[in-house]
């Protein structure tokens, strides 16, 4: 289930984040991603949504080697 962005906006977000990771460079990508998550959290209307997103993102982390 998805509520917020339309499919095309989500595609745009995909491209924008990918490009931003590349601009950050390997040394700074973790910090960039942490800042991005925090910034997006401030846009959420309830902590429950943040908790749910964290749980979702935690799944299968160890299953695959990082790219």
């Amino acid at each position: 289930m998805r509520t917020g962005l339309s499919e095309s906006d989500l595609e745009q977000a995909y491209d924008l984040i990918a490009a931003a990771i590349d601009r950050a460079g390997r040394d700074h990508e973790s910090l960039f991603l942490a800042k991005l998550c925090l910034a997006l959290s401030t846009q959420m209307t309830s902590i429950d949504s943040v908790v749910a997103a964290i749980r979702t993102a935690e799944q299968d982390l160890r299953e695959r080697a990082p790219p």
Partner: protein
Amino acid sequence: MPRPAARNTSWYFTSPHFEFVAPPELQAVAVEHDVAIVGAGPVGLTAALELARHGVRCVVLDEKSELHDGSRAICIARHSLEIMQQLGLSERFVAKGLGWTHGTSYYGTRPVYRLEMPHSRQERFYPMYNLQQQYIEQFLVEAATVDSHIELRWQNRLSGIELTPAGATLAVQTPAGSYALRARHVLAADGARSAVRHCLGLKLRGDAHEGRYVIVDIRLASQYPTERRAFFDPPANPGATVLIHRQPDDIWRVDYQLRDDESETEALREENIRARVGTILQMVGETAPWELEWWSLYKAYTLALDDYRHGPVLFLGDAAHLVPIFGVRGLNSGLADAMNAGWKLACVVRGLAPSTLLDSYSIERRGATLDVFHNAARSTRFMTPPTRGYQLLQTAALSLAVHGESTRSLVNPRQSRPYSYLESPLTTQSPSEGAFEAGPAAGAPLVNRCLGQDTFLLDRLGRGFSGLYFSAAGDIPTSLRDLFANLALGDEAFQPILISSRGSGGAATASDDMSAAYGATEGTFYLVRPDRHVAARWKQVADTDVRQAFLRALGN
């Protein structure tokens, strides 16, 4: 072509051999051709057959003496089948091809996306058919061979082209010597390494993308249904993707991406291909014995000419543009090029339209290419992430998609769709265009509808312009009949298609459903070009507007 060392012929297809026949020019007979087509591949032959359908003669040159080897373009989209129906050939494609509607994308071995292509009982054709290109070429060559408008010249190689005030003069090499061929118009359908393009000093511009694929055909008896399977980071090809498609004759297409650190030379050695394909088949549970059929190496490009018209020359298909395979838009967009160029050139040759009509070919089809680039570049970035950022995002999207819907749309392979000529100079935006709540807009292709037992809307199109007129009473007013007489293209009468619900006895009929789907009310009219695209539409038809839109659609 790359085939196994132990067997250098196809398991399923034997090409006919095309003899060289000395053309009249070699006997010093002066001939001026209306149209010369360079390239007897699927695009050039479709253009030839469309010209022939409109009564225009052409000569087709090809350096080969046989059909292309290998299955090459194997996915034919519905709109291409609709083209073949107009050429009277769809039955052969349907009989031999494997129609399909579904696909599944996997992350590792877990399904993350179910591709469901738009399909319903309103459609005569499946959204996609898998068929080896040899069959596509065979069906087209056989039709062209028996058509008296088309002269096929095999083993005729283009070596030069000179533009003249009257058209072009082609230098042609044959086994019996060389000759000059004079033509008023030239269609360059000679593929990615177009000799016409080279001789005119024109260059494709655009991007080469990351990622290399080995494309392998195998012969394998399997009952797995016809659908598209895409694997991201599967155990059989870690860190890269695999695509599997079924083809007729127990042939299976297995495409696998090479990792960045793999050498092409090593990867293309027969024993390495066997090993990799074996691992992939094991992964998907295929245990029957199999044989290698053919293979090739593929890289994705988004490249196009700046203009598809160069004086008397129009560029079609791969000669004009190279697109990535992931959305199956290569051959399909080439066939749409052929149809677009075909009816327009026929109008110009027959003196029914100004030669500026040909400028709209480039505007419409280059627009289609740029649309393909937009979609294909996106699916290519997903299939073969070009940077670490894209690699991380792809992994994240796939990993999230295993557990929920939220990111699944990102995995959509965006298969080929027909392009809409919304902004074409040939398209008229009528005053009531904005009042339509449904139906194909001005510039869009008609959408098929079932009108009864094995009867569909597109079956009823004429050779020239057609028109859909909606009337509950089922009568075409006299004033409109007079108008229709003025919409003929020479001897190609305008084809009125009356959608009426008379005799329904109160129950909703197929016509009522169609009226709703086309946003139609009493007196609604769609003007349709010979290539099935809507030139304009009116909620309530007005005679003078229709005549103007008709003239505009002919480049006036």
